[in-house]
């Protein structure tokens, strides 16, 4: 017994941390491993630069960056949702990057005006409906889903997910707090069942006929469709005559205390390049942020749509307001 313990102690001593050496970029990623690793592998293959990464929840990674301060090993922060990127910038853990190639590759509304972060893929949060129960003509806008005719027919994901927080934030930003509250409260009144913990569950509930329509990120629809092509579900692009479909991003920024800014910027530029963009978006059935890059065929077949032109940094600014609003109207 004693020997076992001794050898374990030895093992602990031997597995002390190993720190970054040059020609290595360290990434904190809130984007999941299976959605990012193939790109890193490709980059390493192309350039010989090693990428060391750890994944985690956006908030936790941000807190870690804040706490580590100038001792951080991270060079690049990748996260989903513009709100998270905005908060990272606010917390001062990112640094501005002025790169011509990045500025030309990524449209202005999908990046921080000061270059602290850049969108790398675009995710549209749109309406999906049950084709057995309703016709697309019956749908029009997000706002319409709050009207009485959808009573007991709407399915939603939880308000705790940042995607919905950003959606509500954009509504607040466009229509003002009062109008937004009326709208969300209309949604809550129309709910068929309690909100689901994720988009896939919400989609499956609509497919099972629990409700008529739901609001989800397109790639969840894409994934489900790939798996079960026969589900009676279809995408509808709302608000085409007004402000467009709600858009969110996943993106990245160089950390303030990066020891390796040059390599970090290079990696970021490559991620925005045409070579990477195709894969980056396709891995998760998202839309590329770089407009020159065509989306995956599985995605383009959903048809063209007009996306919102609002600068995504608003989502971060209004996130807390959005959460409070949803708490107030009892959106769980």
């Amino acid at each position, binding site marked *: 017994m004693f020997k076992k*313990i001794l050898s374990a102690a030895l093992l602990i001593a031997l597995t002390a941390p190993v720190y970054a050496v040059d020609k290595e970029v360290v990434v904190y990623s809130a984007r999941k491993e299976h959605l990012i690793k193939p790109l890193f592998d490709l980059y390493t293959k192309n350039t010989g630069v090693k990428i060391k990464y750890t994944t985690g929840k956006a908030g936790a990674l941000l807190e870690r960056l804040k706490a580590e301060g100038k001792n951080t090993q991270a060079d690049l922060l990748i996260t989903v949702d513009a709100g998270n990127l905005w908060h990272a910038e606010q917390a001062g853990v990112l640094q501005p990057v002025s790169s011509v190639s990045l500025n030309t590759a990524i449209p202005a509304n999908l990046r921080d005006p000061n270059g602290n972060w850049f969108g790398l893929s675009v995710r549209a949060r749109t309406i999906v409906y049950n084709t057995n129960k309703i016709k697309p003509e019956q749908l029009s806008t997000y706002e319409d889903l709050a009207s009485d005719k959808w009573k007991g027919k709407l399915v939603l994901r939880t308000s705790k997910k940042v995607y919905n927080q950003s959606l509500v934030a954009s509504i607040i930003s466009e229509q003002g707090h009062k109008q937004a509250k009326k709208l969300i409260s209309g949604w809550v009144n129309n709910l068929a069942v309690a909100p689901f913990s994720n*988009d896939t569950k919400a989609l499956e509930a609509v497919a099972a006929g629990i409700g008529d329509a739901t609001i989800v990120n397109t790639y969840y629809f894409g994934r489900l469709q790939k798996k079960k092509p026969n589900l009676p579900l279809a995408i509808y692009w709302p608000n085409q005559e007004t402000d467009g479909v709600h858009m969110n991003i996943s993106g990245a920024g160089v950390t303030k205390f990066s020891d390796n800014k040059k390599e970090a910027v290079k990696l970021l530029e490559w991620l925005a390049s045409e070579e990477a963009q195709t894969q980056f978006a396709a891995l998760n059935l998202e839309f590329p942020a770089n407009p020159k890059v065509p989306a995956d065929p599985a995605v383009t077949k959903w048809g063209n749509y007009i996306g919102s032109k609002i600068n995504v940094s608003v989502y971060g600014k209004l*996130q807390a307001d959005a959460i409070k609003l949803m708490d107030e109207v009892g959106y769980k």
Partner: protein
Amino acid sequence: MLTRKYNKSKGPWRLITWTFSFLVIIPVITIFSSFLYPEKEIWQHLVATVLSELVINTVLLVGGVACFTLLIGVTLGWFTGVCDFYGKRFFSWALALPMALPAYVMAFIFLGVMDFSGPVQGFIKTIPGFESTVFEVRSTPFVIIVIGLTLYPYVYLLSRASFMNQGRGVIEAARTLGISPIKAFFKVALPISRPWIITGLMLVLMETLADFGAVSVFNYDTLTTAIYKSWFGFFSLDAAAQLSSFLVFFAFAFLFIDAIYKSRMRYYDSSKGGKVKTNIKLTGWKSFAVFSFCTVILLIAFVIPVSQLILWNIEVITDGEGVELFDHISKTLLLGGMAAVVICLVSILLAYAQRIDGSKVTKILTKISTIGYALPGTVLAIGIAIPVIWFDKLIQEISLQLFAINTGPIIQGSIAVMLIAYLIRFLAVGFGAVNSAMQNIKPSLDDAASTLGKTRIQILYKIHFPLLQKGILTALILALVDVMKEMPITLMIRPFGWDTLAVKIFELTSEGEWVRAAQPAFYLVLVGIIPVLILIKKMEK
């Protein structure tokens, strides 16, 4: 009558107790220090909107899980411990298997099977007349059942051991006094076993309180979900920490209740219980009823969920989405193993220190050292990360000032920090097992050894280690299984490249990829079952 005193040699042991309780206290203090930055606005909002509901939900959940695990755990413990019925030998170990299933895995399997789009409701719709039947399973009772099904083994194992060790003798005595077996259960066996049952229940309560994974699958709002929301939604770590102190308060309340019961606990000396005692024989419909009850529990708590995992696995692999998980498995085992050894070592030291220095202060400090079990992993992780980083910066500053050397980060991001975090989180589990074994060793053995010229350390090594073996093994296995299932701490403070199965499960489930998550989940259950089986076999002897 006589208190045990060796003042001259107590110093170092007292230091150990102080050191480890201090270690545990650091994150708690870090969390409480958040009150220096009151988040008035967030609190006002929470009080005005959701707080009362969160507290009610939390109390309902914890209370419900407590009742459920008591009901299931104690009855099963009774039947398999002191009754004879068809299949008893099989059930007595099989019923502990659900321990290997993390609550968050159980939750996503349950919803996968039972939700609107799952096979059960799908099947019901095919029955004529039920085409439009839907029922909601994401409700309080089902959250309670799902969490309860993964946690009842704690109560089951402890109550069973207690019934076996001391139940049968007194039940025989009671029955000679003309009391029926059922009455004997309520009047004699249950009160005698209460301290052990309470110990199991404590573990259940703390786990439930800290659970985030399972409740978030159900979108069931509790204090832990509010903690996450404050942090990841409002980006206020302070508000999150302030909410966490609610949980600390609950945990202290539990510890207090536990202490009241434990103060009356008397340990049974198994060395004198050599006589074989007879079991209560169940025959006919009674035997069948108990058999059916055990079968149903085993089916819903283990067989069906694991079968579903296997089915999903097959689906994933045939879809070509299977991934290589060897590295995740080995990291899971390695981390779990290292943490279990550390937890065990500290448990032994603490239990030993308490034995040598039985003062009130020491007892209170040891109690405090086990409080980490009730803290949600994420909060605990932050409570640890902040002081660790501060320590690193301090060392860095000093060495810069004195020697002009930049040491860089020293302990942050190392395995050591992770192990400390696991230690704080799961010390309660290891300490409980070691300490009860320690208390079974007669104090006179220590005295005898010391009059025979042995020092404290020699006594620990030559007398206590061998006699504690069973307790140590129990502690090792419980800690191993718990650490392997642990998700939030691992997620937050693991060093680069240390992705475990739990991390993989998180990544896939948070993307709604439940079917793909079945693959790592299945391996996690698999690596968990082996130690659980060893544990059960050991407890049999």
